[in-house]
């Protein structure tokens, strides 16, 4: 206990609404801890949602408008088959470009799997065509049927079979992330309401004294709100920082998974983890205010 024999200077006698709520209350600590833990989780939920969104977008834009046609090796004259295919494609509306891959490119594609020293020329390899189409005007099913009828050795693949389910999964993952984020923030609000209620109940004497010396509800609530919002903000800052560090130092074994490598935030997305503490403080502000006015109405 500090003993003061002389009076403090004028500045010290000014409004100190912040200190009217004891700084060491359980509710205040709980709020800080909750905000920290929840922000930590929220950053991961956010990263999940944003990464899933980004991956889905990349995949669909990368593969959008592209198809591959394979001419399976057969007894037919492959050059003739290729000519015929190109003719069919020329007649198909919506096809922008059809580019047969030359043997060097094909070899390069296969080399990682088969090795360099394989005599590719001797192998019965399919001829590959890279097709670019304009989405709206192109009738995949029609082309597929026509090829089946006229050139059964040519098989078209627009990557849909492979892309569809993964895209759906990525979308779902993204909504899952947003859902988790929503839940986390709601739970934060509820915890703050509970903690604020507990603090208001525990500080019954403080509130009574304040009311008797003429403090308005607004003044009393503001004192609580400030303390809680500030604690929530500090807690959230700490939680976000930990989460961002954890993301940064995520194990490098994830290197060969495209998704795990992308997991985190890119450029503009950093605004979200940075904004989170402010958002959490806002939630605490609203939650405490609401709880405060409710409790004060209850008291009288």
């Amino acid at each position, binding site marked *: *206990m*500090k*003993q*003061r*024999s002389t*009076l*403090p*200077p*004028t500045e010290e*006698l*000014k*409004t*100190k*609404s912040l*200190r*009217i709520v*004891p*700084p060491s209350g359980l509710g205040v600590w709980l709020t800080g801890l909750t905000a920290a833990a929840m922000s930590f989780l929220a950053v991961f939920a956010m990263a999940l949602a944003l990464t899933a969104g980004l991956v889905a977008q990349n995949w669909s834009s990368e593969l959008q408008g592209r198809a591959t046609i394979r001419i399976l090796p057969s007894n037919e004259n492959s050059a003739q088959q290729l000519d015929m295919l190109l003719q069919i494609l020329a007649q198909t509306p919506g096809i922008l470009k059809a580019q047969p891959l030359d043997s060097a490119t094909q070899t390069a594609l296969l080399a990682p799997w088969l090795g360099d020293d394989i005599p590719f020329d001797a192998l019965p390899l399919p001829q590959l065509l890279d097709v670019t189409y304009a989405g709206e005007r192109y009738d995949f099913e029609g082309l597929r049927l026509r090829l089946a009828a006229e050139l059964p050795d040519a098989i078209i693949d627009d990557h849909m079979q492979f892309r569809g389910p993964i895209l759906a999964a990525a979308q779902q993952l993204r909504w899952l992330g947003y859902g988790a984020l929503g839940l986390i923030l709601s739970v934060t609000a509820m915890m703050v309401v509970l903690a604020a209620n507990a603090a208001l109940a525990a500080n019954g*004497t*403080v509130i*009574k*004294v*304040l*009311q*008797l*010396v*003429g*403090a*308005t*509800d607004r*003044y009393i609530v503001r004192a609580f709100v400030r303390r809680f919002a500030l604690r929530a903000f500090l807690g959230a800052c700490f939680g976000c920082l930990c989460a961002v560090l954890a993301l940064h130092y995520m194990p490098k074994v994830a290197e060969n998974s495209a998704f795990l490598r992308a997991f985190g935030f890119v450029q503009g997305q950093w605004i979200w983890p940075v904004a989170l503490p402010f958002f959490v403080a806002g939630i605490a502000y609203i939650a405490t205010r609401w709880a405060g006015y409710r409790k004060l109405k209850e008291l*009288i």
Partner: protein
Amino acid sequence: MIAFEQVAYSYGGTATLSDVTVQIASGSFHFLTGPSGSGKSTFLKLCYADLVPSLGRVSVFDQDTHALIRDDLPQMRRRIGVVHQECQFIEHLSVIDNVILPLTVAGRAALPKDVTDLLNWVGLSSVVGMTPAALSGGERQRVALARAVITSPEIILADEPTGNVDWEMSLRLLTLLVELNKMGKTIVVATHDLNLIRTVKAQVAARVLRIKDGRVLLAGADL
């Protein structure tokens, strides 16, 4: 300034106060006396609208305390200084912060000179930095009185302000109230101490209200 009209108050069981009609004029000095448990504190709580009457009407500053809306109450309380019998403080704040609390909540700054003078008068200048928990009962009462008068309110209600202090200090505290009364403040002091009442009556025209069996009577000059 304060008017009771056929006021009754009950905490649930039998009436603590019944059929009380009293006028407390502006600038008057009243003592409130009566046995323990007779309802002195209840009377004062009705005056500062901590309680509202079960029956009848209490008006303060010509406002019916029943009809006060939530936002009016703080405004009214700022015009009344109260020394509560329990002397409740905000225990984690220092004595000085507790004393200036009524100014703080009203958004007013304290003039250090006034605060110093006041604390010197009640003999508290050596304990300003302590927290209320470290004070003796008498010191707490003096802090409560200092807090009640710091805003120089129009009405000062003191519930047993001298219960735990020695005779010298009692006189000193009452002198403060008498001085404030001379400045035009309305004072009501609840006390058991008849000696104190007699001494003060010699200095100022004070009326004595006696609570007996739930009724408030004006005591005669005999006392």
